[in-house]
């Protein structure tokens, strides 16, 4: 479903500030895989997701999504096959647009945006049904501007917007990190539900060790632009946060993200 071959991404190449964010990284995800990603600050996790989504073009290597080479394809062109939720709840929605207009943008992904009404009665029905699955009562506030919603509500909406078009790959970058614990739990549960419902292939960066172990069927650990540990489903069942920390300690100079939560 997703294949990354020998991906290298440098910032400020050729200057004293040169920084290799991804260093010959290889990763292959099969259909329906749900991989959690942990790692130190600056390990290249966000850069990895940005390379997959097309926000960054890698300096070397190939990105293949769903059998198609997309390495140099513009972000908006591959958007119909990539869904994203960002850490910042403000990033995934448009604050001055209403809930229904935001959904219209997301549900029209991969289709031509023409001069037909963005929001019609029949679309509104679909939006309502979809919003109900979030259990936040948003289905009764279609005409409310998204800027009025709380961070948790916006993040739930972002999740719906990212998953509805059934992307080939769903990218989640610490998307519960900015929320309080109860909201984070809600978003985590909704994430699991949406992934299961649409049978999505997903890559989820998290700083929550427990979450990284509990969710998904594979766990990878990144350090300095490389994957340094790859835990499959079976091994993942038996591992503990302490064990992961221990593994991490074996890598020279490595410390886990300063936002790491053990439980």
């Amino acid at each position, binding site marked *: 479903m997703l294949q990354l071959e020998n991906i290298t991404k440098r910032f400020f190449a050729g200057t004293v500030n040169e920084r290799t964010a991804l260093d010959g990284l290889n990763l292959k995800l099969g259909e329906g895989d749900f991989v959690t990603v942990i790692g130190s600050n600056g390990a290249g996790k966000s850069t990895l997701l940005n390379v997959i989504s097309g*926000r960054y073009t890698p300096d070397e290597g190939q990105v293949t999504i769903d059998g198609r080479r997309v390495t140099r394809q*513009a972000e*908006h062109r591959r958007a119909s096959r990539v869904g994203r939720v960002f850490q910042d709840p403000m*990033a995934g929605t*448009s604050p001055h647009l209403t809930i229904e207009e935001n959904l219209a943008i997301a549900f*029209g*992904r991969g289709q031509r*945006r023409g001069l037909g009404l*963005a929001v019609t009665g029949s679309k509104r029905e679909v939006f309502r049904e979809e919003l109900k699955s979030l259990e936040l009562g948003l289905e009764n506030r279609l005409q409310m501007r998204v800027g009025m919603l709380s961070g948790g509500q916006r993040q739930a909406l972002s999740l719906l917007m990212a998953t509805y078009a059934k992307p080939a790959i769903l990218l989640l970058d610490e998307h519960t990190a900015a929320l309080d614990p109860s909201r984070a739990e809600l978003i985590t549960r909704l994430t699991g539900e949406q992934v299961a419902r649409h049978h999505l292939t997903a890559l989820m960066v998290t700083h929550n060790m427990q979450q990284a172990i509990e969710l998904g069927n594979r766990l990878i650990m990144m350090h300095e632009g490389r994957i340094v540990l790859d835990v499959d489903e079976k091994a993942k069942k038996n591992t503990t946060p302490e064990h992961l920390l221990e593994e991490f300690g074996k890598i020279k100079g490595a410390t886990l993200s300063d936002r790491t939560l053990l439980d």
Partner: protein
Amino acid sequence: MVIAAELGLIYAILAIGVYLTYRVLDFPDLTVDGSFTTGAALSAVLIVSGTPIWVALIVSIVGGMAAGVVTGLLHVWGNINPLLAGILTQIALYSINLRIMGKANVPLLRQSTLMTPLREAGLLGTWGAVAIFAVVVAIVGAAVYGFLGTGFGVAIRATGDNELMARSQGVNTGVTKVAGLAISNGLVALCGAFMAQYQGYADISMGIGLIVAGLASVIIGQAIFGMTAVWQAVLAAVLGSVIYRAVIQLALNAGLNPNDMKMISAVIVVIALVLPQWSVFKKIRHRRRRVMAAEAV
């Protein structure tokens, strides 16, 4: 005051154009000063040459849109800062407008224009003309409002509101920006075409400083009437334009001379931009927002 209302309504079309770039796209577009004159120049020259008025209007709109496309491409392809892209097009248009007109001023006085029937019926300078202008502006405003509710229109709004989100949702933000600038400048040029017919001539310098008038209209309208919904924002730009012309009229009546108007325009915009940052006004706005949030729940 009737004259101020007439002027305000004609310039409202420009204000709607400026609203599209400044507010919707979050792109302060200085092309306006040039594309307004382009619209005036094209329609004046075509009318003088005997072209039907509706053809002249369409050509004016297309000319303005082309100017918007140039600014858009300078920004999107050339990676040129929005302000600079607009200035570059505006300066280039000065030469182009002179080419179009062949001289600095094209009179329309003996020509038959859209204003001729109004003048013959004795309506110009009366509330009758104001009502007719209001209907025209209402049609333009409704069209823009309708457009902003289409799939493409919402994509343009998302581009101005959260560009990264728009792109990650598959919106080609380069295309939406260029299109938004084109539509905006098409409206501005249409306004120029109307203005040339209203005042009876096109002049190379008639667009100078109009971006400031447009901004003043948008900002004043928004400060007074709010802009929660799109229809409100469009209406606010129109009313802002009328209020702005009324203020100018009052200043003239108070004995200031027409050459001082650019100064006054600039001061109005500065006040409108700075005042809301002062704590007293901030408090008022916060209170209003809280009330709105409470109502929305």
